[in-house]
């Protein structure tokens, strides 16, 4: 087990190096001029454009640029954006919000999703099962943009103006603490929630038919105990996999949710940097995401062994 973890961590090094090179190259060969992308609708003065390109070494050959970048990284310097801000500053400003939002969303997704899935599986075809199905359809076919704004308008504006209840902030303020995260996290979690609920439902129904569960029931064990101890535990493997893979998505892909609730997190920053072709910012953040994926998949892989003792790592 310990050796397995160490092996995985060693593997992370070439993966990270490869990832930075790959992303740096992708951004580099993307057409378009980052200087103009910053300037909006008026054309940048040609001399000014040259000066800025020179200042940020945008005309250097690709490998030279990458070398400068990566040797900076090893000295703890992730470079500077074209607007003159240190990428480390930008990331450390945005990252805490992103982590908190993703964690709250993750908890909602895991707890509510699994519970709903279990209920639906146990009462197949009944009201709760149907409710899970209908919510799934709604979540898929109505854009996050619409649900987000509708909730914001109802709970943020109407509740305050009409009933004097100022509980859900319209836009994010870190001073509001946990409640500032509730609404955005719910909106962010909604699609994944549907996946988790339906995955749990199917997975649990499958394992309930497995021999060992039948045996347990035949032996006269209590239904609840069988489900909790045996069936669910085994059914959790695909769910844990989904959740693990989703955590990174919740961090890097919260663009619309962040926008609706005015949270300046990683998702929005990353999207904006891609639009503006800001190489250093993109590479910095994507590398961080790769790290997150490496760590979560490692944790998930270790969890497999816990959930199913037959799976072993050495």
């Amino acid at each position, binding site marked *: 087990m310990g050796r397995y973890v160490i092996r995985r961590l060693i593997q992370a090094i070439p993966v990270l190096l490869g990832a930075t090179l790959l992303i740096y190259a992708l951004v580099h060969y993307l057409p378009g001029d980052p200087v103009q992308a910053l300037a909006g609708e008026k054309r940048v003065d040609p001399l000014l454009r040259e000066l800025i390109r020179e200042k940020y070494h945008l005309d250097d050959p690709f490998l030279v640029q990458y070398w400068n970048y990566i040797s900076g990284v090893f000295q703890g310097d992730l470079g500077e954006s074209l607007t003159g801000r240190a990428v480390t500053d930008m990331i450390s400003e945005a990252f805490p919000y992103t982590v908190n939002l993703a964690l709250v969303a993750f908890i909602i997704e895991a707890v509510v999703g699994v519970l709903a899935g279990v209920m639906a599986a146990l009462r197949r075809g009944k009201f709760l099962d149907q409710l899970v199905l209908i919510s799934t359809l709604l979540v898929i076919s*109505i854009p996050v943009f619409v649900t987000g704004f509708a909730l914001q308008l109802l709970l943020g504006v109407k509740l305050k103006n009409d009933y004097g209840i100022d509980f859900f902030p319209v836009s994010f303020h870190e001073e509001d603490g946990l409640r500032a995260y509730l609404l955005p996290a719910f909106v962010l979690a909604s699609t994944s929630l549907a996946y988790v609920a339906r995955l749990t439902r199917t*997975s649990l129904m499958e394992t309930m038919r497995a021999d060992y569960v039948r045996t347990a029931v035949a032996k006269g064990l209590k239904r609840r105990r069988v489900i909790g101890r045996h069936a669910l535990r085994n059914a959790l493997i695909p769910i844990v996999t989904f959740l693990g893979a989703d955590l990174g998505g919740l961090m890097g892909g919260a663009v619309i949710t962040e926008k609706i609730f005015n949270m300046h997190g990683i998702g929005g920053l990353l999207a904006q940097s*891609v639009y503006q072709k800001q190489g250093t910012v993109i590479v910095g953040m*994507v590398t961080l995401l790769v790290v997150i994926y490496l760590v979560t998949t490692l944790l998930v892989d270790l969890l497999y062994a816990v959930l199913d003792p037959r799976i072993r790592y050495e």
Partner: protein
Amino acid sequence: MSDTTTVGSEALSGDTGKTDPPKKQKTERAASLWSDAVRDLRRNPVFLIGAALVLILLVMAAVPQLFTSGSPFDGDACDLANSLKRPSAEHWFGFDVQGCDVYTRTVWGARNSIIVGVLTTLAVTVVGSLLGLLAGWVGGITDSILSRFTEVFFSIPLLLGGMLIMSMLGKGNAYTVSLVMAVLGWPQIFRIMRASVLSNKYNDYVMAARALGASSMRITFRHILPNAIAPVIVIGAISLGVYIGAEAALSYLGIGVQSPEISWGLMISDASARFLTAPHVLLFPSAALSITVLAFIMLGDAVRDALDPKLR
């Protein structure tokens, strides 16, 4: 884990060396698995309803003229004078902001949306499942390489990947958007399939089959796959809807379906900004998408039940 690797790879190399006869036998057995499944499906009302819905959608996608007399591509299809008019007796679904008939557009939008949904789901499922099977079953170095690879893929933002592929392809349509989403979407299925295989490969019947000397190929496709496919089918059915909706986001980058072409994703995204003042423009394409997803979820449930050996 290393022991399974050696067993797996040995078996695999042994299998590839084999000649025709055993393969034939295998296809026969596989066929019987499938004919069992088909017999099950024919009797399953969930499957029949789902199949009927999918059939209607496919016909709508292929021959929209059967469902509406108008065409959204006529010069006078849209008139700003009708902008955002509510549903009426002649125009059941009302008009959108451009003054186009929402019903006609919903019918004609089916084609692109179904193409995007089905193609992407198919590509993602096939690629993700096969690689996931491989990683989960063979394990060892193969698993490590494939897994690390997916982690990098996972982290590439859709936007970045999309813009890049777009810059190589030029102009976007339903196929390019499917390509982009498939390229960036398969790691999810990969992870799920790999997990499924891991949790199934130590089951008694797999052990038994191996002890009996069954080839690795045979174990994989005859025993592991049918047992491991369930979560993939669940994810696939939901993803199909998500892809149809997400297509619109990529249209903004010039990757997806472009106006004057129509898709449900585009209609939904265009209607979103005015959902408070003109909800009907959003309602109908969203409903169409819901029905599509429902149909595929029903199909998926039924197929999964039919393939499940434990139900036999």
